[in-house]
């Protein structure tokens, strides 16, 4: 229990608030395919300095039983159709060089076990996310067209590679070369954008566990992305979700694939250091 919850419960006891509806994460366990145990709550990373209390939680713990169930078995997970299509694409030549991903990555997507858990990362001085790696290899090695950032071909491929890290703890570096990007992302996280003047932190740090209209606010973790969002009936990229949130503050948002969102992705990912990669998660 964090301080905010303790205050709320105190207020309820004092009769100032209705007790109904005050709820944090549920107590359900996330075991995928009856064999893979995913850590949906772990000790908060030190850099948060208690901002989320002592424990961080996967967004899965804030969803309804019906939504949660879709992530328990890969046959029920609607994201897997897109992931399967990406596996086909992985093995299919594309572009002027007549190569597929598998031409170089002969070990298959399994070669990338662990990679997504450490992304974003700095490569040659530039902060890079998975979409960047996919498109740069497509263009420079395969001679193929870049994939559209939030299109299903791209997000299916991001999810296929992320799936190879499922169950591994998120572990992005925030120091060294990553530090200035991380600081930029942190500043964005606490900036109150738009006419509604809402920061990421206003909802996902100050009010996680609370209801805002019909939505049970989570800690805004991105360890399950790309995530199949039932509302949109497709795989949703991290940057698309950032864009949607900032748009909903009545703000001029940032572009998917912008350096701003790369920095924000690094910072938000780091708030989930220690949680299991859940890719591809299913949310409401």
């Amino acid at each position, binding site marked *: 229990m964090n301080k905010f919850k303790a205050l709320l419960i105190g207020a309820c006891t004092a009769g100032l608030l209705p007790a109904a509806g005050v709820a944090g994460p549920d107590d359900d366990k996330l075991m995928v395919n009856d064999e893979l145990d995913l850590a949906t709550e772990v000790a908060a990373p030190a850099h948060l300095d208690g901002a989320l209390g002592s424990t961080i939680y996967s967004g899965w713990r804030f969803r309804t039983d019906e939504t949660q169930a879709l992530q328990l078995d890969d046959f029920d997970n609607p994201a897997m159709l897109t992931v399967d299509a990406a596996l086909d694409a992985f093995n299919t030549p594309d572009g002027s060089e007549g190569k597929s991903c598998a031409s170089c990555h002969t070990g298959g997507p399994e070669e990338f076990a662990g990679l997504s858990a450490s992304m974003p990362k700095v490569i040659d001085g530039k902060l890079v996310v998975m979409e960047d790696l996919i498109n740069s290899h497509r263009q420079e090695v395969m001679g193929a067209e870049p994939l559209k950032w939030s299109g299903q071909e791209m997000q299916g491929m991001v999810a296929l590679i992320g799936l190879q890290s499922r169950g591994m703890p998120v572990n992005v570096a925030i120091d060294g070369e990553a530090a200035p990007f991380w600081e930029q992302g942190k500043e964005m996280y606490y900036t109150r954008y738009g*006419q509604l003047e809402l920061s990421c932190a206003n909802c996902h740090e100050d009010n996680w566990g*609370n209801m805002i*209209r019909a939505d049970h606010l989570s800690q805004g973790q991105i360890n399950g992305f790309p995530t199949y969002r039932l509302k949109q009936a497709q795989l949703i990229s991290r940057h698309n979700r950032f864009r949607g949130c900032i748009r909903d503050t009545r703000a001029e948002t940032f572009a998917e694939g912008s350096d701003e969102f790369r920095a924000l992705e690094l910072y938000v990912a780091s708030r989930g250091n220690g949680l299991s990669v859940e890719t591809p998660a299913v949310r409401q």
Partner: protein
Amino acid sequence: MKKILIITGIVTAFALPLNAEIIKPVDVSFADGAVETSLTGTPGDPAAGRVLMNKGAGNCIACHAVTDLQDLPFHGEVGPMLDGVGDRWSEAQLRGIVSNAKEMFPDTVMPSFYRTTGFIRPGNAYTGKAAEGDLEPLLTAQQVEDVVSYLLTLKE
């Protein structure tokens, strides 16, 4: 009838002192977070305010629970419950809080419903694009008065 006309004249004289102009968002005068003067000079309509609590730009119950509105689903928990606010706050204080709660509570998460300047990357409504020209406030001056008049009916 004559008496009613006289009373109406007096009420009008009080409600519309000298000018009946609507106070613009940038001209609202706060004192300790409160706004003494009606933004329009026209009394608020509690019934219209009650509707604004739920729909459109008001959407107050996204964050606040209100027992009087319990026929509507999904009241939020982000802000304090509003039962009894008509006892806890004066009309001027409620007008100030609805217009720009940050005057009274500097760190509040509550949006400023009658303010048009000082935003970071203001957008063109919910399009995600940059705002063009002057922003409209989230609520019109009369809508603020309507919401305030409704809140004043929420007694313990």
